[in-house]
């Protein structure tokens, strides 16, 4: 086991972010260019080194409300580069660096930039509230045909019955769930780029308005404006890079019915993915120093804690209660940038990946986990799940 896995031939070499906030009054295109230029510089490269471009999402999903990636060809034209590999996709997006790692590991490109740009904060302002999922489309296609027409108009309505069932089956309480947004808010206070940084209490959480039971306001991530770019490079180019981070293992498995309503038990959406990832490494959950687990909703971070083996199924409520285990200084600091719940919905684990890279480089400032060697990163976009271990560069 080990050196033959393709992800060992790829590294994350650069991260870059635009200004991030509830509303940033610049175009998505300009935010994208800001992030790409920052990421390429962070990698120790120049634009002329970049030969691959990717964005998430691509295709018809690129223009949902607040989705502001721009057009991949216009970005390439603006950057004035030559590319040998390009990708824009929804399916297969288990992690931001998954496709780019495949490209550089197989020699199709040497340095790939992938970006995700959101202006969902502005879109929410302009709509007078968070827009309905799919509201720009005339009709609901695919799995959404069974969800939007009945009134499950947002992902929160789609995940909420699974949260209710999970709380019911395991006796987990909302008082326990509260410790995830509360603890992450304390982390966000140490992140100058986080959207919300003022303290949050369990009482604030319990007093907040319901969105779709049992998910309240603070269970939902924060619509934001901002762009994140990540550079993925061939490991053999490491000598050219300022501060690469190794990809120890990654996987993305769909072993259930891929829809919100038909998946057999959605609390286990990440279990097969995590198991496949652990099969590609000699490391174990106890080796993880810091966890950046997708938190589009609080309940998704709960399920990832269990899927990744940090605790057993049904035990995440007790694991997070009181916050001591998941806080900085605890046994598993969780979403040290504030996560999407406080840091902003940068989406698709782009923010989570950027933070994991900072932590492993020792560049996380006031929120640095001392001696961080191994970081877990997970993503779940509905039923598209991904999990990875990133490690400090040693070769």
């Amino acid at each position: 086991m080990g050196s033959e896995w393709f992800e060992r031939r790829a590294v994350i070499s650069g991260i870059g972010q635009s200004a991030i906030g509830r509303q940033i009054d610049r175009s998505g295109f300009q935010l994208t260019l800001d992030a790409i230029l920052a990421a390429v510089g962070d990698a120790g490269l120049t634009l002329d080194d970049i030969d691959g471009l990717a964005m998430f999402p691509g295709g018809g999903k690129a223009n949902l409300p607040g989705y502001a990636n721009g057009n991949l060809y216009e970005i390439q034209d603006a950057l004035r580069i030559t590319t040998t590999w390009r990708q824009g996709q929804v399916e297969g997006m288990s992690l931001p660096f998954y496709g780019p790692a495949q490209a550089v590991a197989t020699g199709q490109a040497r340095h790939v930039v992938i970006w995700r740009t959101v202006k969902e904060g502005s879109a929410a302002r302009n709509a007078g509230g968070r827009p309905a999922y799919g509201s720009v489309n005339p009709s609901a296609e695919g799995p959404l045909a069974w969800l939007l027409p009945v009134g499950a108009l947002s992902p929160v309505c789609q995940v909420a019955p699974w949260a209710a069932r999970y709380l019911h089956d395991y006796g987990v309480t909302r008082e326990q769930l509260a410790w995830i947004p509360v603890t992450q808010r304390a982390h966000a206070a140490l992140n100058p780029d986080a959207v919300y940084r003022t303290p949050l209490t369990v009482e604030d959480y319990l007093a907040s308005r319901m969105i779709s039971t049992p998910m309240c306001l603070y269970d939902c991530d924060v619509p934001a404006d901002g762009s994140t770019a990540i550079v993925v490079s061939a490991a053999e180019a490491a000598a050219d890079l300022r501060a690469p981070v190794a990809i120890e293992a990654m996987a993305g498995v769909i072993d259930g019915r891929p829809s919100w309503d038909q998946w057999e038990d959605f609390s286990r959406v990440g279990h097969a993915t995590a198991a496949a990832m652990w099969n590609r490494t000699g490391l174990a959950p106890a080796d993880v120093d810091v966890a950046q687990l997708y938190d589009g909703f609080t309940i998704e971070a709960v399920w990832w804690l269990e899927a990744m083996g940090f605790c057993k199924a049904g035990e995440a409520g007790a694991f997070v209660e009181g916050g001591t285990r998941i806080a900085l200084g605890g046994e598993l600091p969780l979403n040290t940038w504030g996560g999407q719940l406080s840091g902003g919905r940068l989406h698709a684990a782009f923010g989570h990946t950027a933070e994991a890279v900072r932590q492993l480089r020792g560049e996380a400032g006031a929120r640095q986990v001392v001696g961080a060697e191994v970081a877990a990163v997970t993503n779940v976009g509905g039923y598209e799940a991904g999990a990875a271990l990133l490690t400090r560069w040693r070769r």
Partner: protein
Amino acid sequence: MTSPGAPVGIPPAVTEETAAFWAAAAEGRLLVERCTGCGAESFPPYGMCRACRGRAVEAVEIRDRGRVYSFTVNHQRWLPGLEVPYALVLVEFPDHPGVRVFGRLRGCPPDAAAIGMAVEVGFEPGPGGYAVPSFVAVPNVPATGDPAVAPARGAA
């Protein structure tokens, strides 16, 4: 959940596979696919049995009472004019193990929704002139606390 005027929302994109479902919905009937080979039922309709992968399927109507696998009460007005709150339920049918259907809940206050409660099949006017699943609470039937979990993939 009856509301005057056109219901606010996003209508389904109807395909060759789903046309029969939506046509029956307009008549208040819940159609699923049944495999003429192995007899397993599948939802949503794909023209392919999810148990044996057979391609010969027929439409059959489910009239049985269902059980609420789980639910949510939506309080957020996602679209202008959307009437809130309303309950949404994931419904399973004890005698139809391949079938789980998402819909609204009526016949009781939204806050009365509960895991395990009994519901009758029903529909109500939805967006775009389509009838959408709208299950009807059955009074005086105690909730079974632990309805069967959906079958594993490939199970009949």
